[in-house]
């Protein structure tokens, strides 16, 4: 049977006492897809990921991973997952190599196979020469790559990555992005939460934008930009924004104000550009996922 969905959530909710972290969401992930969760802090991304990883039972709703129920088949699901948590949790008392050997035991990978896999995943993340190094001596970027390498030991069908590139330098980030695309090319399903719009735009086939426990929008990055903000944006600095604000109130232009800067979204970019030529300091540029994000999740800080 060919599966059309590998992860399926229906009315999925998570409450911590009175706090609603996830407020009944629906989503479906297809095999081999890179599916993203985008949202400000406290949007419910990590809670959702933890439910997928069987580390947090749903309060309500249904969640199937590879056709298995997260409530009752946790062990079997976890055997098929590769998990990269937000914060590194390597074993500081061991070397790089020993970290992988110990972790492979949890999956009951036979020793010979474990050694072969360890060599492969270290090579894959350019850590081959560090095998004998104590974890404590690795740089932040190397530790992150080791956590990623560790998550591949069991040849997971699904990779669950919670902000995988936070804290990495640009080189490290690009290496990780390239490797994730490579894995996806080999058929691995990737579930990714991020606050990095560039990351979401580059990696995700489809994504959902979450806010206060709900899904505000879902689709491919391009479609989301088209649908919610149009192709172009005019950014108006604070100095010129004042008088323009009054003028905009009567118009049908969609706009957003973040701190003191105005963002004007228009489907008819040319027209907007021409009229904006008159406003001092206005910048005309293509719209990005970040514009969608700010537009949908509001101006103020989430916390």
């Amino acid at each position, binding site marked *: 049977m060919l599966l059309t969905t590998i992860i399926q959530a229906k009315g999925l909710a998570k409450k911590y006492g009175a706090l609603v972290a996830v407020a009944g969401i629906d989503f479906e992930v297809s095999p081999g897809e890179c599916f993203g969760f985008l949202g400000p802090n406290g949007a419910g991304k990590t809670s959702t990921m933890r439910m997928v*990883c069987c580390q947090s039972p749903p309060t309500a709703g249904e969640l199937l991973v590879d056709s298995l129920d997260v409530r009752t088949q946790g062990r079997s699901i*976890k055997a098929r997952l590769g998990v990269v948590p937000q914060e590194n949790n390597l074993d500081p008392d061991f070397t790089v190599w020993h970290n992988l050997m110990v972790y492979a035991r949890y999956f009951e990978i036979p020793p010979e196979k474990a050694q072969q896999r360890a060599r492969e995943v270290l090579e894959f993340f350019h850590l081959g020469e560090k095998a004998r190094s104590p974890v404590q001596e690795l740089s932040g970027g190397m530790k992150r790559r080791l956590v990623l390498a560790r998550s591949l030991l069991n040849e997971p069908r699904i990779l669950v990555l919670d902000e995988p590139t936070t804290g990495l330098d640009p080189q490290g980030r690009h290496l990780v992005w390239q490797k994730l695309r490579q894995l996806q090319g080999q058929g691995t399903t990737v579930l990714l939460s991020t606050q990095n719009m560039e990351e979401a735009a580059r990696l995700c086939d489809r994504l959902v934008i979450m806010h206060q426990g709900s899904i505000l929008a879902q689709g491919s990055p391009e479609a989301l930009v088209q649908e919610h903000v149009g192709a172009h944006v005019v950014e108006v600095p604070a100095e010129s924004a004042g008088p323009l604000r009054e003028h905009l109130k009567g118009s049908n232009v969609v706009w957003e104000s973040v701190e003191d800067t105005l963002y004007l979204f228009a489907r008819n970019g040319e027209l907007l550009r021409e009229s904006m030529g008159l406003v001092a300091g206005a910048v005309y540029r293509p719209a990005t996922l970040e514009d969608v994000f700010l537009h949908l999740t509001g101006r103020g800080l989430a916390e």
Partner: protein
Amino acid sequence: MSHPSHRALFVWKRDLDVFLRLWRSEAGGVVGEPLFVLAAMGLGLGVYIGQVNGQSYLSFIAPGVIVGYAMFGATFECTYGSFIRMEVQRTFEAIIATPLEVEDVIAGEIVWGATRALVSALGMLVVLAAFGQVTSPWAVLVPVVALVTGFTFASLSMVFTAIVPSINSFNYYFTLFITPMFFFSGVFFPLSGLPQAVQWLAWALPLTHAVSLARAALQGAAHWGLLVDIAWLAVLAAGTFWLALRLMRRRLIK
């Protein structure tokens, strides 16, 4: 709640791997400190005390010091040790992302705590034997007593670790519970000399029964009261083990 499975062994093996890597820095504490206590009390204080229950003071306290330090070994491991692995290193979080469940992790940690108790008791037994202090063949049962003692205190400690808000809370556990127990469980003097009320209190302490069992084994003197000791330790071990699993699931799975 799921039942602990054979996978608990992988957690035990992980802790053993760390111990084997770092044993040089730990071995001194495992056997060194109890030997200092034995030497100071047994040889130093023993001169003034003479005989207790017809034996030298050193022979009288040796079994209690063995299981007392078995208790300390298991307790340190499943308080400070487990807490650091849980909260600082996030080792538990890393493990429960694999097919292991919380119950596997906690069972593995407790069995490891018991193993530490066993290692410490074996070390002391070897040293005592070298000084001619081990005469009864029943002494082979001392490691078994140490293992059971270790399991009981590892479980008890894990219950506490599951509910403490911060690592500083362990100060209370040690100063108000563990250390007083070391002095009021018949390690250094027979409990029969204490006021009746204190005797009852001492009787409830798990270490009292561990000392009673270890003393009987090291001296080869069996009596019916040992069955009560075994039963009390078994009940306490089973109860706290179960409670530790429950409370840890509540703490870790939210």
